[in-house]
């Protein structure tokens, strides 16, 4: 992931994260440049979600650092966080507010000038305009995931961190989401996608990595052959 001349939008240097005696991450380093999508695979408990939380600034590393456009991500400076969008296992949505109200609130947090227009655009992008005024608690799992995607995209972040983003999406919605991701890459955004099923975003990925035991077991440009990658993955993870 160091072949291109563009400076990285997102970097991590020697990320270590321990929970008591348990070391979940043991020195993860990465660079993601504009237009790159790093797809990360790994078994349960490999530290994928922890990695995304560290990169998003929701968790502090035990050692190492996260850099956004070369600027260290710290608790005291909120500005670099503006560049990050995170789609997590959790939706970050309030059940008693409608999809539009949730997005409008997020727009205020990000200081968007025209929050209403940004909300409309984000809901349109994920095909949720018709349910904009439905309280979130009444949305199905798939629609909820679309609302969460809209929230993550709302402020047009340069860096998108996606944790199992295809969860709950039906085939047409997944196709639509792949189009959204392609559009984000075309606009020069940097994406990190964590998934157990890399096939869902294989064609979009520019780089792949396998996280096992808190370290990269494999990292590099995406190979052409998914089947061969699966075989290599099984060998690395399951021996």
């Amino acid at each position: 992931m160091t072949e291109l001349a563009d400076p990285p939008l997102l970097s991590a240097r020697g990320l270590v994260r321990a929970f008591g005696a348990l070391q979940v991450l043991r020195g993860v380093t990465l660079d993601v440049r504009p237009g790159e999508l790093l797809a990360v695979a790994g078994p349960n408990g490999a530290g994928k979600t922890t990695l995304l939380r560290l990169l998003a600034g929701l968790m502090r590393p035990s050692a190492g650092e996260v850099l956004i456009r070369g600027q260290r991500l710290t608790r005291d400076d909120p500005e670099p966080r503006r560049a990050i969008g995170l789609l997590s296992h959790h939706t970050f949505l309030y059940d008693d507010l409608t999809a539009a109200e949730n997005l409008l609130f997020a727009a205020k947090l990000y200081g968007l000038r025209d929050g209403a227009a940004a909300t409309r655009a984000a809901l349109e992008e994920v095909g949720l305009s018709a349910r904009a005024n439905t309280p979130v608690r009444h949305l199905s799992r798939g629609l909820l995931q679309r609302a969460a995607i809209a929230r993550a995209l709302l402020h047009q972040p340069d860096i998108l961190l996606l944790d199992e983003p295809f969860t709950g999406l039906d085939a047409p919605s997944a196709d639509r989401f792949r189009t959204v991701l392609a559009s984000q890459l075309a606009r020069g955004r940097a994406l990190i996608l964590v998934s157990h099923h890399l096939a869902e975003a294989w064609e979009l990925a520019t780089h792949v990595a396998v996280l096992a035991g808190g370290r990269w077991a494999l990292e590099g440009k995406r190979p052409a052959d998914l089947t061969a990658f699966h075989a290599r993955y099984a060998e690395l993870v399951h021996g």
Partner: protein
Amino acid sequence: MAEFLRLAFAIAGKDIRLELRSRTALLSAIVFSALVLVVFNFARDPTAIAAVDLAPSVLWVTFAFGAVIALNRAFYVERENAALDGILLAPVPRSALYVGKLLANLAFVGVVEAVALPLFVLFFNVSIGHALPGILGVTALATIGFVSVGTIFSAMVVRTRFAELMLPVLLLPFMVPPLVGAVQVTSKLLAGRPLSEMVGWLRLLTLYDIGFVTLCILVFPAVVDE
């Protein structure tokens, strides 16, 4: 500063909107406060202690219990779908989040107090007309004090397993100074005593407010960040 206040008001506005939708915490706090007043009303012996002597303590115990119930919801609403992470992810200073939560909590506790005060007058048959401006003033002073502390404790306990139990255990000791001051001032107000007799207590309440609001704003980032 304008940006800071805009964010704080956005967070407070969202909390108020959420509460208006569900009404669960506010209604619970109001009903609980009314029940406390009913219990005190029937438990007291009017021939042993005059209502006016007992009234200030009852009023402030009611306000305190109602506030604890209302404060429990402050960060509970952020637990659903990890909504707090959504706020922490945004470029929002942690202190603006605290001030937003504080403003919302002051609004909720203010509503509980606004409902409980007339009920208190009704049950205890105490004439507060002459002392009403003073009572409103001291209520505002004392409420800012214990709600500021309650807001930070609410954030601290929200990730624990027994948040509803932990909040009163942590908060009630910190409520003692403002409650003692408020009871003293309310007693003197109801007895028609001159302002000079209350100045010391009012100073204590003011210092408590300034001290704890400042301290909470400084400490809150460490509490809310992992």
